[in-house]
C-alpha cells in the first residue's frame, strides 16, 4: 500500500525538530555524568532565564525564515529597544515597540514594494538601526523603569517570571505556526510565493506580518534584556541575529523556507546554551567551545537534509 509508506506533512514538520532533540538528550546525558552540577535544577533555570531574550527573538526569526526570508536586523532592534527604555522618558516602552514595528514595516516595504533581497534589506536596516541605538545611548548605562526590574527578579513556583513569560509566548507562537491559518500561509508563502498567491493566499500580507512579528518579538527580547540588565547597551544585541539564525537552522527549520516549526528552533537555543554552560562547567577553554559548537552545528544541520521529499 503506497499510502502507508508516504510521509505525512505534519509528521515531516515534527520530524524536522528531531535531530536537535536527540542531540540535546545526548548532551544532557553526557553532562549529567561528567558534572554533578550541570543538571541541577537551579543551573537549568539559570540557563533558561539567560536565554529568554534569544528565545523571543528566535520565535520572530522563525516566522520570517518560514517565508523564505531572513531578518538580520533583529539584533539591532534588541539594542535599540534597550537603548530607548533605559532613558527616563514617558511612554518609553510603547515608544520602543513603535520604533521596532516601524523597522519591521520598513523591511517589509523594501522587500515587497521595491523587491530588495531580504538579506540586503535587513542588512541595511541592521546597520541603520544600530546607528540609531548608538545615537540614543552612546554609552551603556541608564535606568529602566522600576516595574521592569521587578519583572526580571520575580519568581513564581520556583521559576523566574521571564521564563514563565517565554514559555507562554512559545506555546502561543507554536500554536500560531502549526495550527493557525496564518501559520499555514507562512509555509505556503515560503515554499512558493507564486503558487501560494494563486492558491488564494495574500502573500504580501503574510510577509508583512512576518517581518512585523519578527521586529516585535525582537523588541520583546530587548525589553526582557533591558529588564534583566537593568540598563541599556547599544551593542548588547549584536550577536542575536546570527544566534537566532543558527538556532533556527539547528532546529531543523529550512532557511529556504516552507518547512519547520517552533519546537526545533527553541530547542536549538537551549541546546547551544546548555552546550556552552556544560563546557564551561567542564572547564573547557572558550576556543575549544567555539570549535565544538561549529562542528555540532554542521552535524545537526546536515542531518536534516535527507528527510525531505519534494523540497
Amino acid at each position, binding site marked *: 500500500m503506497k499510502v502507508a509508506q508516504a510521509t505525512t506533512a505534519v509528521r515531516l514538520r515534527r520530524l524536522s525538530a528531531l535531530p536537535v532533540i536527540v542531540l540535546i538528550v545526548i548532551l544532557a546525558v553526557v553532562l549529567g555524568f561528567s558534572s554533578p552540577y550541570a543538571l541541577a535544577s537551579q543551573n537549568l533555570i539559570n540557563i533558561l532565564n539567560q536565554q529568554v531574550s534569544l528565545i523571543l527573538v528566535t520565535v520572530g526569526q522563525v516566522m520570517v525564515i518560514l517565508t523564505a526570508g531572513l531578518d538580520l536586523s533583529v539584533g539591532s532592534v534588541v539594542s535599540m529597544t534597550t537603548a530607548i527604555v533605559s532613558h527616563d522618558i514617558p511612554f518609553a516602552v510603547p515608544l520602543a515597540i513603535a520604533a521596532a514595528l516601524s523597522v519591521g514595516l520598513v523591511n517589509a516595504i523594501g522587500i515587497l514594494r521595491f523587491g530588495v533581497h531580504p538579506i540586503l534589506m535587513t542588512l541595511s536596516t541592521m546597520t541603520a538601526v544600530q546607528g540609531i541605538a548608538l545615537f540614543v545611548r552612546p*554609552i*551603556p548605562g541608564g535606568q529602566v523603569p522600576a516595574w521592569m526590574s521587578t519583572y526580571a527578579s520575580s519568581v513564581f513556583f520556583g521559576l523566574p517570571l521571564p521564563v514563565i513569560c517565554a514559555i507562554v509566548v512559545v506555546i502561543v507562537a507554536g500554536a500560531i505556526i502549526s495550527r493557525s491559518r496564518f501559520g499555514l500561509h507562512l509555509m505556503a508563502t515560503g515554499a512558493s510565493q507564486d503558487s501560494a498567491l494563486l492558491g488564494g493566499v495574500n502573500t504580501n500580507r503574510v510577509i508583512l506580518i512576518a517581518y512585523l512579528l519578527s521586529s516585535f518579538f525582537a523588541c520583546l527580547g530587548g525589553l526582557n534584556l533591558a529588564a534583566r540588565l*537593568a540598563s541599556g547597551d547599544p*551593542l548588547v544585541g549584536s*550577536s542575536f541575529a546570527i544566534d537566532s539564525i543558527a538556532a533556527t537552522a539547528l532546529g531543523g527549520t529550512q532557511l529556504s523556507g516552507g518547512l519547520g516549526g517552533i519546537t526545533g528552533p527553541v530547542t536549538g537555543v537551549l541546546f547551544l546554551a546548555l552546550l556552552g554552560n556544560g563546557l*564551561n562547567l567542564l572547564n573547557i577553554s*572558550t576556543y575549544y567551545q567555539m570549535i565544538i559548537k561549529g562542528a555540532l552545528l554542521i552535524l545537526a544541520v546536515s542531518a536534516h537534509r535527507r528527510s525531505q521529499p519534494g523540497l
Partner: protein
Amino acid sequence: MKLKQILLAGTMLLAFAAGPALAEVPELNSALSPVAGSPMVDVPASKKEKFVLGFSNISVVNTWRVQMVEELKYEASLHPEISEMIVSDAGGDVNRQVSDIESLITRGVDAILVAPGSEVALNGALDKAYDAGIPVIIFSSNATPKNYTVKLLADDAQFGRDGAKYLAEALGGKGNVISIRGISGNSIDNDRWRGVEEVFADHPDIKVIDEGFGDWAYDKGKQVCESLLIAHPDVQGIWSSGGAMTQACAEVAEENGLPLIPMTGEANNGFLRIWKEKNLESVAPISPTWFGQQGVIAALRVLEGAPIAKDNLVNPAPITKDQIDEFYRPDLNDSYWVGSTLPDDKLKEMYGK
C-alpha cells in the same frame, strides 16, 4: 590542557602542604594604592582552610584579556589554600555573564572575582552574590552594585591623559591633532577619550581636527589612518587608543612619504618593537595585565582576614622612550603585554617566537 596540568599540580601541592594558613598572605602590588578616603574591608575572616574561587570573565576577545586570565590562573595555582579556581567566560555577552555569576552563586563559591562587561548590567547579580555573603571582588573594569567587597580598578581616563599630556608637551602646546579611537560606544574607549578631552581643555591651541574608529585592530586602524592622514597631511600629532592602530599609522605615514609625527602608543611588545625600529616619537601608557593576579590576591586577603582597602586604583607611569629596553622583550612576539607577573617559561609558551 597545560592549564589543567598546572591546576592539577596546584591541587597536588596542596595535598602535601600540611597545616593550615602556613603560607604568608600575599601583598597587593605596590602600584595599586587605596583611593583617598576608602574604608578598609570589614569582613570577618573565613573559617575554612581551603577555598573555592569563582571568576566570571566577560571575554577573551584580545590578548590583553587572555594574558590577564592566565595571570589569574597562575597566581591561583601558587596558593595551596585555593582548592579550586572556577573560570567562566561569557564570550563578550553581558547577558551570559549575569548567568555565569548566578551560576557561581548557586555553586557556593567562597569568593567571586569578576571582570565586568558592563558598568550597570551585572549589578543585580553582584548584589545577589553580596547578599548571599559571598565576597565580591571587582577588577579591571568597573561595575556599580549597591554593595561589593573590593574594587581594583585602573583609571582608563588616565590612559588618555598620559597620551594627551605627552602630545601637548611634544607639540609645545599648539597644533592640529587627529585621533584614532577604539570601538564606537565602548566604555573603555569613552573613558580614555574623556581623559584626552580633560587634558586638551587646558591646551586651547591644540585642536582635534578629525577622528575615526579603528576598533583597536591593525587592519581597520590602517584604513582609518590612511583616510585621515591623506585628508589632513599637515597634522602635527596623532592620539591613538591602542598600539596596533599606532603601528598602522606609522606605516601609513611612511608609505605615503609623510613625516613620523608624534603619536601615542600602548605598552605592548609589538608597539615597543615598532617604536624602537622606527624611532618614533611616542609614549606608551600601561594598562596592567596583572589585574588577574591582583584579583586572586585580594580575594585571599579578604578570606584570610588580612587588611585591604575597599577601593583601590592603579596608576602606573607610562613608558617613555628612554625606558623601551627595560620593558621590550625581543624574545617574545608582538602580542605580549609588557610588565607581566607570569614566569618566563609560561610567557615563552604563550608568546614564544
